[in-house]
């Protein structure tokens, strides 16, 4: 399973990440951070849909997204 971690105090709520996600799982949350921006988030139930493509991290102007990827098991592996 892949996942992203959004550093909420850096997010400026520009929502560019929501436009490039191929699975459309990133959305604006109801929370405000200390700077007063409404941050982006991935709802916990959607996180398993993350493919680890890094598109959101590539377009994030504030380097607020870290991407973790678990390599897929090859066929025949135990």
């Amino acid at each position, binding site marked *: *399973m*892949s*996942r992203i971690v959004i550093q909420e*105090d*850096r997010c*400026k*709520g*520009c*929502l*560019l990440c*929501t*436009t*490039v996600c191929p699975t459309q799982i990133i959305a604006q949350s109801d929370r405000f951070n200390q700077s007063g*921006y409404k941050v982006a988030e991935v709802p916990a139930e959607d996180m398993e849909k993350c493919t*680890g493509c*890094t*598109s959101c*991290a*590539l*377009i*994030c*102007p*504030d*380097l607020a*997204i*870290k*991407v*973790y*990827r*678990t*390599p897929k*098991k090859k066929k025949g592996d135990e």
Partner: protein
Amino acid sequence: MSEQLVFDRPQSVIDRPTHYCPGCHHGVAHRLVGELLDELGVAEDAILVASIGCSVFLYNYLNVDAVEAPHGRAPAVATGVKAARKDKFVFTYQGDGDLASIGMAEVLHAANRGENIAVVFVNNTVYGMTGGQMAPTTLIGQRTTTCPSGRCLEHEGAPIRMTEIIAGLGGATFAARASLNNVKNIRQAKKYLRKAFQCQIEKKGFGFVELLSACPTNWKLNPVDANERIKTEMIPYFPLGVFKDALDEGGAC
């Protein structure tokens, strides 16, 4: 199998919040430059010549030695830095108000002399830091604080296409234009920047990359619409691609 961290901040970019507005593409450009300094192994030898504009505090965000140049004079300062320290990697990072307006003479002559430096040119068609005045690259019909009814071809002339001008000079080795509006274009931008930096590392001359970027605040758009404007209005006028590549021919000189 254990999970791997596949995307993180490059070492050359300092872990610090930036002062840019939401959706400003300076952050993406900083990251691309930082990643390349790390990947090419020149971060320790790099000397940044920063310009005036929103990117004026670039020395706070990139972990390299820096000189702050007067408005528009970054290529002239870089020429001096390179002449004094030939072993260092010297690059400038300038906006369109800095490079295409007040700094037009400096960048043209540095390119024409074939100075062995790299220039990163961030074009957002407006003076960002001073409050959204008309820049030489402002598109026809675009409203700014100094052309409130839109730029008029008759009175203010046509927007300047810098990359084409640089490519037309004999001394330039590499000139390309990329955009930062989507993932594909960002990847392409990194390839162009790598080539421009490679020019200098291989001592082949002047490398120039123009990056089309958004200024949501001064365009009076939200970041997502501003990104869309790059695609619908800027790219048709500022075509993307490589305009000059003399790297394989051994450089321009």
